[in-house]
């Protein structure tokens, strides 16, 4: 295939990728977007394979293994495990970029600007690789999900990063000093691990988005090194996408963006816990809850990570069906950082076939809470804590929350009164209008469904 034709293939592929993202803006056109992305990818791969001077044995082997792993990864993963899968795919993407950079370096004769691009590519690639594997381990709960913090952590991490960058710069100036290369790689890998160690579960949405951005930028740097504009464009699109998502997540948690860029987050201090006095919360049985829900006109459901853990989305759907049939208006309020990755709750509720026009963003639904008869909180905690609005001493003060406490009554399904990830007590639980429904979300919802349907039959 002639060089011009190949360039044309890449150009069309880039256009298709842009259209693909454009069509993602609404659920109505999103599947067309996937199709455009696939077409662009196919065009780029076929074009590259036909460029001539190629031998194919190894490529075929790689294609077979890659597809063999990829297909089950796409179809067998339960929807609750989507954050893990995403972390894993960031690791794969970053690894590919890092290895290409490594191979290019060992081919020799690289210098100047290309060497700069290669170093950026490998630094981002290797640190995103181990970082994403760590994130995967935490999400899969192979590793402890609690943040691991120790003294001088930030200083250690920053000096490690500085050392990695230092060796990188030295390699740019003296590419022939090959002994420095393994050190550079090892430092990058180690930095990726230590970057994720202090991250707790509730910070995962930000981290996943950030790793997404890094993986994209690594691919972009590869584009600079290989002077391939398609790679530059696709990498930039991915990089800016991850960047925006992490900004959105930051805002939703009232964190500063510099905080995230340096990875020095996940350390909400656990000081506020000790001082709270003994207060009492009211609890209720599934039957009592069913009665209240059945009598309501408007119910707003607030799902959180607890719903995902308990796999309660299908039971929730049964309750939704029953109540809707009985004339109750049921809506869903989704906080941007609910769950373990951006949009996590929406996917789970969609999986349970809850229509997406019932799912509302925080800003759209907050004005509805005063009209709601019941706010039903399922496995969400900090995102409903009124302390974020009116208690300046609270560590999450200033974080935008769902105004659950403004509803006429509140029900919270939760395993126990224990504080959430951030270790902050939630005054919502002790309000007069709040009923605590203690138990496993799935089992409890099952109980409510049973109770509601028995009143139907009676």
């Amino acid at each position, binding site marked *: 295939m002639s060089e011009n034709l190949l360039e044309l293939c890449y150009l069309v592929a880039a256009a298709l990728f842009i259209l693909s993202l454009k069509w993602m803006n609404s659920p109505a056109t*999103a599947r067309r977007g996937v199709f455009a992305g696939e077409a662009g*990818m196919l065009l780029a791969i076929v074009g590259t394979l036909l460029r001539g001077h190629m031998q194919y044995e190894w490529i075929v082997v790689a294609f077979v293994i*890659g*597809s063999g792993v*990829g297909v089950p990864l796409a179809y067998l993963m339960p929807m609750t495990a989507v954050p893990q899968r995403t972390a894993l795919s960031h690791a794969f*993407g970053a690894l590919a970029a890092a290895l290409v950079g490594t191979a290019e370096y060992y081919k020799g004769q690289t210098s100047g600007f290309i060497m700069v691009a290669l170093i950026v590519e490998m630094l981002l690639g290797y640190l995103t690789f181990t970082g994403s594997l760590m994130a995967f381990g935490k999400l899969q709960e192979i590793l402890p999900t609690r943040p691991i913090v120790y003294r001088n952590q930030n200083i250690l991490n920053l000096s490690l990063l500085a050392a990695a960058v230092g060796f990188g710069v030295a390699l740019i100036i003296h590419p022939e000093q090959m002994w420095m290369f393994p050190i550079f790689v090892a430092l990058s890998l180690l930095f990726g691990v230590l970057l994720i160690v202090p991250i707790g579960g509730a910070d995962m949405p930000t981290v996943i988005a950030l790793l997404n951005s890094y993986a994209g930028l690594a691919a972009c740097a590869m584009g*600079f090194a290989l002077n391939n504009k398609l*790679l*530059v464009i696709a990498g930039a699109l991915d990089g800016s996408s991850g960047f925006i998502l992490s900004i959105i997540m930051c805002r939703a948690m009232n964190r500063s963006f510099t905080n995230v860029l340096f990875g020095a987050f996940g350390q909400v201090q656990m000081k506020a816990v000790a001082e709270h006095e003994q207060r009492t919360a009211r609890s209720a049985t599934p039957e009592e809850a069913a009665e209240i829900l059945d009598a309501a006109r408007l119910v707003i459901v607030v799902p959180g990570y607890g719903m995902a853990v308990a796999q309660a989305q299908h039971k929730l759907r049964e309750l939704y069906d029953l109540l809707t049939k009985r004339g109750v208006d049921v809506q869903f309020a989704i906080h941007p950082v609910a769950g373990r990755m951006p949009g996590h709750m929406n996917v789970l509720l969609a999986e349970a076939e809850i229509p997406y026009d019932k799912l509302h963003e925080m800003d759209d639904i907050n004005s509805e809470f005063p009209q709601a008869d019941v706010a039903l909180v399922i496995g969400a905690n900090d995102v409903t804590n009124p302390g974020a609005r009116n208690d300046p001493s609270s560590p999450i003060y200033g974080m935008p929350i769902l105004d659950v406490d403004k509803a006429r009554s509140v029900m919270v399904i939760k395993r126990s009164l224990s504080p959430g990830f951030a270790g902050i007590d939630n005054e919502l639980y002790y309000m007069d209008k709040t009923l605590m429904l203690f138990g496993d979300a799935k089992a409890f919802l099952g109980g409510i469904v049973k109770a509601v349907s028995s009143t139907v039959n009676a």
Partner: protein
Amino acid sequence: MQVSETDLYVFMLAAFLGFELIRRVSPLLHTPLMSLTNAISAIAVVGSLILAGEKDASTLTRVLGTVAVTASMTNIVSGFLITDRMLKMFKKDRGKR
């Protein structure tokens, strides 16, 4: 190999375009969006293919290239498929109930 400053312009324009495009994506679709951009950034496969398929490549290049193609291919296949699987689940209430 010569690097042109055009690449930098391309990067800048693509990044701005990316910001404008992603800003418009509804938060409803943030999870599928992430798996889609992930699949798209597996375009790194192009660089890997060139390495793995080079006629007179050294063993090191060949091995690294092949592993890179495998990793990218896994992302391409699983990324596009799972995005579509997720998007298929998003349905509007057609009022049939």
